[in-house]
């Protein structure tokens, strides 16, 4: 059985570098991507967005390619988004959903990798509850792997679509004050966004109760606040994260209602931000908890745009990885 512990030191280094030596083969996380590579993905997403805004939302670019969408965690929007992205590019898609309860992690991933190999897949999209699972899969098979969320680690395509949406709205990321509010500790969306936004020159501020912040996160080049009021002043972007209700049972917050009162984004708090500030949320939304109804449905929310842009950005990633690079 292949486990992380069973790898040689050299293999382990390579593993934890997140594919740094093969920068273009996989899309595992934004930590391993350079600003140049991120921009390349975003540039190619622009024509992809044109394709999906036409009547005929299909181009023949990936005809004859097979994309396996492998989800070990429940998800609707990310899975559907990847599936649509592949279909708009004329690839064939196969959905595999595995229930977490019946899965013995390392072993089953190895078996699955063998199956995927045998099926002749040209690319695999993987969501897995364990951090590093896509990196392991990338080592086991010789086709590109896209991380669609691994544990509390990274969710690169979500951050890429957030950044794409910001670029459309604001032109450039340089100097933008971006405030991320919510459960940073458990959020792979926050982690990927912190990597991506700081690489592109945004000024990133985090707001969360101390129990929902990872220790030492300041070293990532971000400013940490515990009260939203002090962070929101003059912000250009407010990114709200979903509060997972089970966090209360773990004793990390006193109550959902108290969290909503202290950290929920309402109209009064949003008034502290710049008049042209936009509000983002990766979904699904807990209305009345982390975001008030009137803000989620208000004119400054770009939440539905994020969903549309997600398809375009994923098309770009599929295109770049499937057709290979660097000749």
């Amino acid at each position, binding site marked *: 059985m292949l486990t992380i512990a069973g790898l040689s030191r050299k293999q382990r280094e390579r593993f934890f570098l997140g594919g740094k030596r093969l920068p273009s083969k996989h899309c595992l996380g934004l930590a391993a991507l350079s600003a140049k590579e991120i921009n390349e993905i975003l*540039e*190619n997403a*622009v*024509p*992809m967005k*044109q*394709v999906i805004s*036409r*009547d*005929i939302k*299909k*181009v*023949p*670019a*990936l*005809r*004859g*390619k097979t994309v396996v969408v492998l989800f070990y965690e429940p998800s609707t929007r990310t899975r559907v988004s990847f599936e649509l992205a592949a279909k708009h*590019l004329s690839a064939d898609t196969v959905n595999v959903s595995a229930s977490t309860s019946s899965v013995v992690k390392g072993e089953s991933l190895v078996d699955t990798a063998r199956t995927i190999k045998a099926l002749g897949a040209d690319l695999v999209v993987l969501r897995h509850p364990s951090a590093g699972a896509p990196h392991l899969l990338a080592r086991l098979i010789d086709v590109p792997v896209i991380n669609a969320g691994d544990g509390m680690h990274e969710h690169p395509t979500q951050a890429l679509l957030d950044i794409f949406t910001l670029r459309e709205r604001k032109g450039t990321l340089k100097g933008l004050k971006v405030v991320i509010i919510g459960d940073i500790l458990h959020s792979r969306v926050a982690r990927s966004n912190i990597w991506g936004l700081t690489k592109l020159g945004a000024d990133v501020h985090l707001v969360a109760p101390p129990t929902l912040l990872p220790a030492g996160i300041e070293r990532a080049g971000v400013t940490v606040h515990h009260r939203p009021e002090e962070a929101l002043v003059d912000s250009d972007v407010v990114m709200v994260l979903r509060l997972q209700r089970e966090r209360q049972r773990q004793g990390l917050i006193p109550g959902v209602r108290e969290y909503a009162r202290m950290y929920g984004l309402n109209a009064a708090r949003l008034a502290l931000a710049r008049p042209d500030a936009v509000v983002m949320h990766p979904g699904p939304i807990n209305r009345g908890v982390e975001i008030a109804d009137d803000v989620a449905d208000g004119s400054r929310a770009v939440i539905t745009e994020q969903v549309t842009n997600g398809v375009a950005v994923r098309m770009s990633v599929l*295109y*770049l990885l*499937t*057709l*290979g*690079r*660097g*000749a």
Partner: protein
Amino acid sequence: MNFRVKAIILDRDGIRRALTRIAHEIIERNKGVDNAVLIGIRRRGVPLALRLAEKIKQIEGCTVPVGFLDITLYRDDLTQLGYHAKLSRTEVPFPVTDRTVILVDDVLYTGRTVRAAMDAIMDLGRPKAIQLASLVDRGHRELPIRADYVGKNVPTSSREIISVQVEEIDGQDQVLILEKTE
């Protein structure tokens, strides 16, 4: 690999005269340009389409809509390239349905680019007709495609390369025939 300039096929005036003639032919063949649109294939079809529109305006006094097409996603060799081709934007800000679309490109060679461009146009709408204007036709077709308007027919061998240079992209206007030297 090195290249040697074998001949200059068209100079600045040659290109200008060829485009002027093509503009006249487009107007004559379509009995005016009321229903016509010009779509340049990226990259060098773009400035050529703009110049044709300018000439048609001088002759007929009416403005023909001009669009630009990136055909990368429609290429038949996309999965064999071994590298990814950078995508550009397609800018066709008008409906093509029931219009006469005149595709503009610099060189007509195998015909595969034109095949891709026709598929791309069809995905934008259902034109009444598609016509093709090419500054140079060098032969060696691999598909049953021909141009409706040709600036210059140039018989070539497959060892030779046609280099179309336009001022907007290359800083000067000329068409060269290059030969590979080992």
